[in-house]
């Protein structure tokens, strides 16, 4: 990047006011940055930081109640903010294109994907149908879709998440724009797919010399793709520089905090304390567990059969944290739900303290439920919005015959234990942030003194800094209470941070099992190797950065 080249796009002092009643006055304040031709600019931040806001302002996609109050977005001498809608529409797609987070909702379910790529060219005045058709095939080929001639006639629901995102990218590329804006384009995708899409964006950007604005929350992704990076917090740019500066020599305390929170492997963590307990009866043992989903048989159709859990054998000891890792559809959540008996298993045994709980009816299992508890994924859906926190916490003990005062005392202890104020007891879930709600979820699980705790993607919905706090809380609890914990996650980095043993699942089967050191340093299975390979930012070591910072300060 030479300094002599004029920037493609330059945002100057952009300020967008929020309507009254929000927690701050401005969605973004005084944002200035340049996008140069041929570079990938990453905008990083946590939820609510306003990182998507400039991208939306550039595309003219701000909702009605948000109005830019100051500043300009300069593109080839024109200010995009004051451009009339007509001219802005001509620019969209032709000069500036966008890729959205969720490819399924970005595509029209009633049109074939070929038609949708075609339409982009049609609305921009390309009336030559044959030329458009040829271009559709060329684009689909270019974004790496197999067999474009057949696939162009497919509807979006037929395609996998990664293929859909490739279609969206092909649409964005149809008119050879000079700027591509990608708003969290890989967040909804599995890691292996994410790695492919990142490589694709990088490849296209190199080949076409486009400027790319890439909005993300994931520092790993930044490390993989960025030339320059901007870190945002609460609507302000706190740090801006080349990728190397921001990632390896962060200056602002907020950036440093974020980087410290990025999940990474802890080399000094003790591994596999399952060995010491090897001769006692395991807390939980799964033997040849099976669960298959079957759709009901129609008159003319065969039932769809999806084996979600196949012949699983696992052992969980007291004090052990077992990570279950897999991509979407691997059956990892089904496994958790089958152990919880929220779903019935088809065959196999679930031995709890040596007793098979699989054949028990719901009614006869209910008294034992308190010993196996779960922390759910979505902190917003897992708490009843109509109940106070006190009610949510004490419901469990009350259902198990504990009296009110004891339950209340225990609830107050646990609120303090998970780092919440005692006043939370009388408040309602909507008054808390996502991280706080997840703490409440953890407290609810602990109210019943369980032996086994199953955490199903319990930190996936949280920002990295909150994620790190919740993980630390879980680890403290584990160290003190010596539970058996099953930690289900799609993120290998998080599993590495908290687990003693990791189980890698794929299509309902366990493909590899072992301590993190084996899974990460010497993965045996080809699929595990692919997963490890796909982890974003593996060339970058946040823990090293933080260690260096500490050294400098001393």
């Amino acid at each position, binding site marked *: 990047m030479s300094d002599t080249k004029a920037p493609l796009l330059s945002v100057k002092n952009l300020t967008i006011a929020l309507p009254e009643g929000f927690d701050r006055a401005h969605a973004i304040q005084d944002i200035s940055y340049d996008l140069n031709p041929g570079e990938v600019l990453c905008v990083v931040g946590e939820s609510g930081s306003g990182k998507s806001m400039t991208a939306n302002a550039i595309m003219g996609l701000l909702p009605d109640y948000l109005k830019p109050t100051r500043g300009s977005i300069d593109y080839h001498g024109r200010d995009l903010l004051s451009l009339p809608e007509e001219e802005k529409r001509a620019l969209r797609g032709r000069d500036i294109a966008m890729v959205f987070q969720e490819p399924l909702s970005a595509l029209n379910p009633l049109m074939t994907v070929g038609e949708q790529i075609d339409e982009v060219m049609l609305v921009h005045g390309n009336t030559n149908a044959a030329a458009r058709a040829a271009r559709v095939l060329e684009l689909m080929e270019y974004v790496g879709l197999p067999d474009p001639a057949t696939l162009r006639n497919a509807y979006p629901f037929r395609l996998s998440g990664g293929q859909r995102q490739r279609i969206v990218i092909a649409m964005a590329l149809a008119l050879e724009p000079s700027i591509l804006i990608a708003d969290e384009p890989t967040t909804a995708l599995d890691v292996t797919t994410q790695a492919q899409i990142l490589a694709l964006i990088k490849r296209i950007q190199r080949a076409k010399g486009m400027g790319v604005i890439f909005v993300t929350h994931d520092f790993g992704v930044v490390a993989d793709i960025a030339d320059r990076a901007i870190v945002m917090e609460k609507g302000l740019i706190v740090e801006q520089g080349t990728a190397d500066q921001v990632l390896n020599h962060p200056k602002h305390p907020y950036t440093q905090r974020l980087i410290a929170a990025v999940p990474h492997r802890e080399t000094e963590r003790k591994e596999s304390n399952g060995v010491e307990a090897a001769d006692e009866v395991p807390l939980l043992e799964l033997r040849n567990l099976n669960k298959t989903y079957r759709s009901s048989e129609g008159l003319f159709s065969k039932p769809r059969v999806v084996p979600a859990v196949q012949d699983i054998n696992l052992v969980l000891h007291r004090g052990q944290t077992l990570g279950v890792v897999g991509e979407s559809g691997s059956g990892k959540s089904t496994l958790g739900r089958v152990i919880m008996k929220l779903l019935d298993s088809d065959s196999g045994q679930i031995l709890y303290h040596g007793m098979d709980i699989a054949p028990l009816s719901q009614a006869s299992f209910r008294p034992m439920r308190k010993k196996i508890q779960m922390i759910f994924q*979505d902190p917003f859906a897992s708490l009843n919005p109509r109940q106070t926190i006190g009610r949510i916490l004490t*419901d469990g003990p009350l259902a198990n015959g504990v009296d009110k005062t004891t339950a209340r005392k225990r609830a107050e202890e646990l609120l303090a234990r998970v780092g919440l104020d005692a006043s939370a007891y009388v408040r309602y879930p909507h008054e808390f942030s996502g991280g706080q709600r997840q703490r409440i979820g953890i407290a*609810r699980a602990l109210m019943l003194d369980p032996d086994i705790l199953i955490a199903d993607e319990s930190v996936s919905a949280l920002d990295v800094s909150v994620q790190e706090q919740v993980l630390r809380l879980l680890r403290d609890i584990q160290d003190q209470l010596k539970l058996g914990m099953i930690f289900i996650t799609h993120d290998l980095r998080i599993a590495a941070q908290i687990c003693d043993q990791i189980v890698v699942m794929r299509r309902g089967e366990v493909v590899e099992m072992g301590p993190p050191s084996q899974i990460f340093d010497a993965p045996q299975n080809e699929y595990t190797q692919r997963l490890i390979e796909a982890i974003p930012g593996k060339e970058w070591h946040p823990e090293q950065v933080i260690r260096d910072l500490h050294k400098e300060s001393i």
Partner: protein
Amino acid sequence: MQFIKRFSQNYGAVLGLIILAAIVFLAVAAPLLYPGNPWKTVGMPLLRPLQDAKFLLGTDMLGRDIAAGIAHGAKVSLLIGVVSTLVAVLIGVTIGAVAGFYGGRVDDILMRFTEFFQIIPTFAMAVVLVAIFSPNFISITLAIAVVSWPSVARLVRAEFLSLRQREFVQAAVVIGQSGPRIILTQILPNAVSPIIVTASLMVATAILTESALSFLGLGDRNMMSWGFMIGAARTMLREAWWMSFFPGFAILLAVLAINLIGEGINDVMNPHLRGRKQ
């Protein structure tokens, strides 16, 4: 508090509330305003409105006061509307909740049972039921309830089917709460808004059904009712328009008021529609 504030911003709903309050007042004050039996002849037959200062809305062909009839009829209409809706909601919520929560075979049986009521034209069924159990307040109320609960059951079942999948309900299962407890304390409070909205609109339908039954002569013979008054006036339509016009207008006002209130409650309780006027 917030509910009242948002509700009061909806002018239609406030208007509806004022009209309804006036009708309720009329119903309660009827024995004081128009003491005595509204069925009794009190003046000359077929007096036009305002012809005699004693009979503001005129009299019918038997010399009965139209205004007294409307005031006393308000009580019947409102009472039957509200009570039959309450009974319908009770049946509908019970069946819908059990079907939606337990699913499977239970759901199949209960929904087939519900459909059994849905395949018969509702008004025809109400007529038959009232005709079988001689027309009186209780049989009319029950007949209206019996024909209107299936829509509540369908609605509640749909709500339960979706709420049952939510994580907080699974969390309740996991902490060992029993099925009935989960239905009552976890799911039902979250399904209350659509139930209230539907119920408020059902009151209006019930009033219309009662009027229609009375019009056909299937009303309670001991209670004056708007529908009966219109029915009695149908032979005199050209000679004495006021006999059917005023009770008809009363029905219109009552149903309109309740619909406005129902819409208002819906707007306030349904977060997706909040602020759609902006």
